[in-house]
């Protein structure tokens, strides 16, 4: 049983990464990509269930003194199934959105999912770093998925550069952990020597804040919205952004041990929750609103890590994952159908597709923190713990939750009211302004929305008794952690009041500073992105001359190669087909006399299959030596890795 669980844990990481790499590398796999990727994602759900139940731990020796270790503890057992389920649902829904380069898309998504699973299960800093890097690179590729669009590429670059800059913190932490003498296991970090402990905590804090899009790194999330909506649904709700918060929850003992890191973390979380909620209120673009709200909601998770309520934070993470994936998918559905994600273009959209609208409404209400939906309970579990530390931070948190009710109400105000006939043209003017909408919502897009809506409604049970104490025990937290009754009532009342007021007034202030994400983006653009891009441009110009020539040459070679291949095909294959078909005709005629008809057909079927395989087997023998080299080296590397991990 133990061995099986260990194999499952390896598979959970290796399977999506391997399948993803194959899909991403295969150029002509578009037709089979979707079934393969969905099958893989389904397998991952099963695997995650097994590892969540069995809690295995595995490790391979890596560097002297440390292992590349994966372990599933209570926290990971909570997050891994969430991750895999959301991945599966998002991949399902993406079938309606992504129609070109599906192989590359699904491949990258699977690689990404594998990396996130790796991150969630990582038990040592080297494993974490490895997974963290792959996750970052995959997210860059996914945000820039439509790479012909320069703006989208630069958006991907912004996200990548910002998170990379923050990632340096993790490297600093790893160095400090080595020097600190307590080893590189995440669980032991709090025992390293006092001086180094501060460096480790600071490094991890910076890296986590960067990934979780907390202040002052929040702006990258805004730019990242240029990616496909399915990507946003996975990366910016359940997976990558969440991993920032998750990391802080995981090293909560370390934060607590330093003395200063806990309050600082809570402070950053509270500030982000409040300010980014204000930013969200001001947005006029649905995805931008959701992005800002993601940062704000992650603020609560960060607060939880600072305040020491791991169970509350984890529950909030899970609930938020379901809610936000749902809303991003809904935004994506509307974007592909109508070609717009601007709120002005989405007026009365519930009337067009009821099911999508209702699901989004459940999501928005959950996001608002309306009782008894999920985020209400989980957020209050966090706020209760914060309230025990500082009344000011608690007040900030409460204000932030009031603002979240406000921006959720803003969504509802837009999507529900029926548009009067005379204003309809005004709304429809916004259609197709970003891409050509197809005015269709497929069944595969609807199903995940409903399932996620159920999750968004009920995930709050994790923060309510009796489940809350189970969760707390699982994550190793002592003492009670669920929200106090007073807190639950107060917050329910506040959010409901705000929601009702806004629904009644149907208007919201849109401060300009908040609309432009507090100028963070401009600042970052001036300080980080533009210099880097200028550097890159200079390099590109230098490269152009060399590359251009190479590409022209390659194109010419490809044309001549294909011509040669065609000639080859004509001559050889024709010949072979004629002679074999003659042969098989004769054989078939003779066999038909002797054999039953079905057997004949089965054999014929098999022969066709084998013949096709025969053609396929010749593909790798391209005649190009450098491709032989690459194939041989890749096969050997994969062989070594498989043998070492499975052996």
């Amino acid at each position, binding site marked *: 049983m133990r061995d099986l669980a260990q194999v499952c844990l390896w598979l959970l990481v290796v399977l999506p990464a391997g399948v993803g790499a194959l899909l991403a590398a295969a150029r002509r796999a578009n037709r089979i990509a979707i079934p393969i990727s969905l099958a893989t994602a389904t397998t991952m759900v099963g695997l995650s269930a097994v590892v969540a139940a069995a809690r295995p731990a595995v490790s391979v020796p890596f560097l002297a003194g440390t292992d590349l270790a994966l372990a599933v503890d209570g926290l990971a057992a909570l997050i891994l199934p969430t991750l895999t389920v959301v991945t599966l649902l998002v991949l399902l829904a993406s079938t309606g959105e992504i129609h070109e380069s599906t192989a590359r898309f699904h491949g990258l998504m699977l690689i990404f999912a594998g990396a996130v699973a790796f991150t969630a299960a990582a038990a040592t800093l080297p494993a974490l770093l490895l997974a963290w890097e792959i996750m970052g690179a995959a997210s860059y590729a996914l945000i820039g998925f439509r790479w012909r669009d320069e703006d989208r590429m630069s958006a991907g670059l912004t996200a990548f550069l910002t998170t990379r800059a923050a990632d340096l913190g993790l490297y600093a932490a790893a160095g400090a952990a080595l020097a600190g003498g307590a080893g590189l296991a995440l669980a032991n970090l709090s025992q390293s020597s006092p001086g180094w402990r501060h460096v480790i905590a600071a490094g991890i804090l910076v890296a986590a804040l960067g990934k979780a899009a907390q202040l002052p790194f929040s702006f990258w999330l805004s730019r990242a919205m240029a990616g496909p909506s399915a990507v946003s649904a996975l990366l910016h709700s359940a997976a990558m952004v969440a991993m920032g918060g998750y990391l802080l929850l995981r090293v909560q003992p370390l934060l607590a041990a330093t003395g200063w890191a806990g309050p600082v973390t809570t402070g950053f979380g509270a500030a982000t929750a409040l300010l980014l909620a204000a930013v969200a209120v001001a947005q006029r673009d649905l995805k931008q609103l959701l992005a800002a709200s993601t940062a704000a909601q992650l603020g609560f998770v960060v607060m939880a890590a600072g305040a020491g309520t791991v169970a509350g934070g984890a529950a909030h993470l899970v609930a938020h994952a379901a809610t936000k994936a749902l809303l991003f998918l809904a935004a994506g559905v509307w974007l592909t159908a109508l070609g717009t994600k601007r709120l002005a273009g989405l007026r009365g959209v519930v009337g067009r597709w009821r099911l999508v609208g209702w699901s989004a409404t459940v999501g928005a209400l959950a996001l608002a923190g309306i009782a008894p939906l999920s985020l209400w309970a989980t957020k209050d579990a966090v706020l209760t713990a914060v309230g025990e530390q500082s009344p000011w931070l608690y007040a900030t948190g409460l204000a932030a939750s009031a603002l979240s009710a406000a921006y959720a109400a803003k969504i509802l105000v837009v999507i529900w009211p029926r548009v009067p006939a005379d204003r309809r043209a005004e709304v429809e003017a916004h259609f197709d302004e970003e891409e050509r909408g197809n005015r269709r919502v497929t069944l595969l897009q609807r199903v995940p929305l409903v399932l996620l809506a159920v999750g968004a409604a009920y995930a709050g049970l994790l923060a309510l008794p009796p489940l809350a104490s189970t969760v707390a025990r699982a994550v190793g937290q002592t003492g009670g952690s669920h929200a106090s009754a007073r807190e639950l009532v107060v917050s329910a009342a506040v959010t409901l009041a705000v929601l009702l007021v806004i629904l009644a007034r149907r208007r919201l202030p849109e401060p300009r500073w908040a609309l432009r994400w507090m100028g963070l983006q401009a600042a970052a653009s001036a300080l980080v992105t533009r210099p880097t891009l200028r550097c890159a441009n200079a390099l590109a110009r230098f490269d152009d001359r060399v590359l251009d020539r190479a590409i022209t040459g390659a194109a010419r070679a490809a044309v001549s190669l294909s011509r040669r291949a065609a000639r080859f095909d004509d001559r050889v294959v024709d010949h072979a087909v004629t002679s074999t078909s003659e042969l098989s005709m004769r054989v078939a005629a003779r066999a038909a006399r002797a054999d039953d008809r079905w057997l004949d057909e089965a054999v014929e079927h098999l022969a066709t299959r084998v013949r096709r395989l025969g053609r396929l087997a*010749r593909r790798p023998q391209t005649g190009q030596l450098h491709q032989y080299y690459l194939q*041989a080296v890749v096969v050997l590397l994969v062989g070594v890795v498989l*043998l070492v991990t499975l052996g």
Partner: protein
Amino acid sequence: MMRPLLLLPEMLLVVGALTALLGGSFVPRHQQWMIRVLTAGVLLAVIVTAAIGMAGPARTAFDDSYTVDTATGVARILASAATLLVLMLAADEIAGTARESETCALLLFGAAGTVLLAGADDLLVLAAGFLLATIPLYGLIGLVFTARGAEAAMKTYLMGALFGILLLTGVTIMSGLTGSTGYAELTNALVDVPPAAVTGAAVALVAGLMFKAGGVPGHFWVPDAAQGGNATAATFLTTVPKIGAMVAVYRLVGILPDAVPWPALIATVAVASMTLGNLAAYWQADPRRLLGWSTVSQVGFVLVPVVVAGNSDLALPSLLVYLTAYTATNIAAFAVTAALPERRDLGDYQGMAMQRPWLAAALVVALLGLVGTPPTGVFVGKLTTATAAWDGGHGWLAVVVFINTLLSLFYYLRWIVPTYRQPPRDVSAQGETRSRRQWAPLTAVTAAALSLAAGLAGGVVWTVVSGP
């Protein structure tokens, strides 16, 4: 203990090669047949000395770095006999050319290398054997001096260099891990080192040997070189190096500790080789290229008993039986293509049975032999290897062997069927008169007869390779 006399056959080969090389520069071109006769004499002497050596018990030479046992003895005899057959077949191609003595020298060097590989009981000897067996191949392929020959030489060289480096990497890691390179010390020392590192080194070593044997993933050069080189080179490189490489793989897995999943590694390579080789051979039009791919699949079959090395007493004898049968059968098939150098398309073989009945008979024996039809030698080989796999607890491998055998029947039939059709109407002998070859058909018939004999006398062969 040094015991240099134990290595008499190897010394004969190397000295013979040097003599051929030097002698070639003093003998006028029209008398270079003398060099060929000398080479044949050396090979016969090696066969005789090796046969005498097999009568004695297994011993080691040069401080346990070289083993002389039944496996080495069989490898010596097989390599020499195969080289002798190749030399016979080469007579048509090289007689009176400028490269006659060089070809003889390269063949002898290659044979010496493969024998050294087979007997190596020390990683350093293995590396030296690898080099000695590989370098002459580049020369042999390159001697053709055609565009395709040059391409084949380039590909073989670059693949060989990369896999040679991999082999040396494995040797370096093993010696770094344990401080020794002898198999006896390694067997004891490897138990205590991290299995991951040993696995990595084992993969590198096996990869290097797979290049020599022409198995996945070092197989890329085989079809290209078989098509691009001349008949001599194609026959030699698909037959002789495999003998040494296979025995070397067998000895190598013996030193690996149980913590290293080497049966899985070898089984994967075996299945991949046989399946890929068979499938890729399906649609080939060039007979030599088809044979090239077929040898890739044969490597897979030969590897099957290696998977159960140590688990079954049948492993080593069945490996040697298969190698024996394969050597004769493969040379017969290549010799047929050498006898008809103008027919470079399967379609050109239409009606050959009417024109050259003996050659056609040799072809049928060779191809059905490669499939594994009774009563040829490969049938005995396939039967014993499958039995060994079953005996060693890898029954599924026996099933895979069976399925792959069925698969392979198709493409061999693609070649046999046109041979026995009516010849095309406009039969102007297809330039047959241009170069009527004598030696290659003789070789084909001889090798086919040997292949049949190995099958009919399977019991005797089995007794011989099972050792004293």
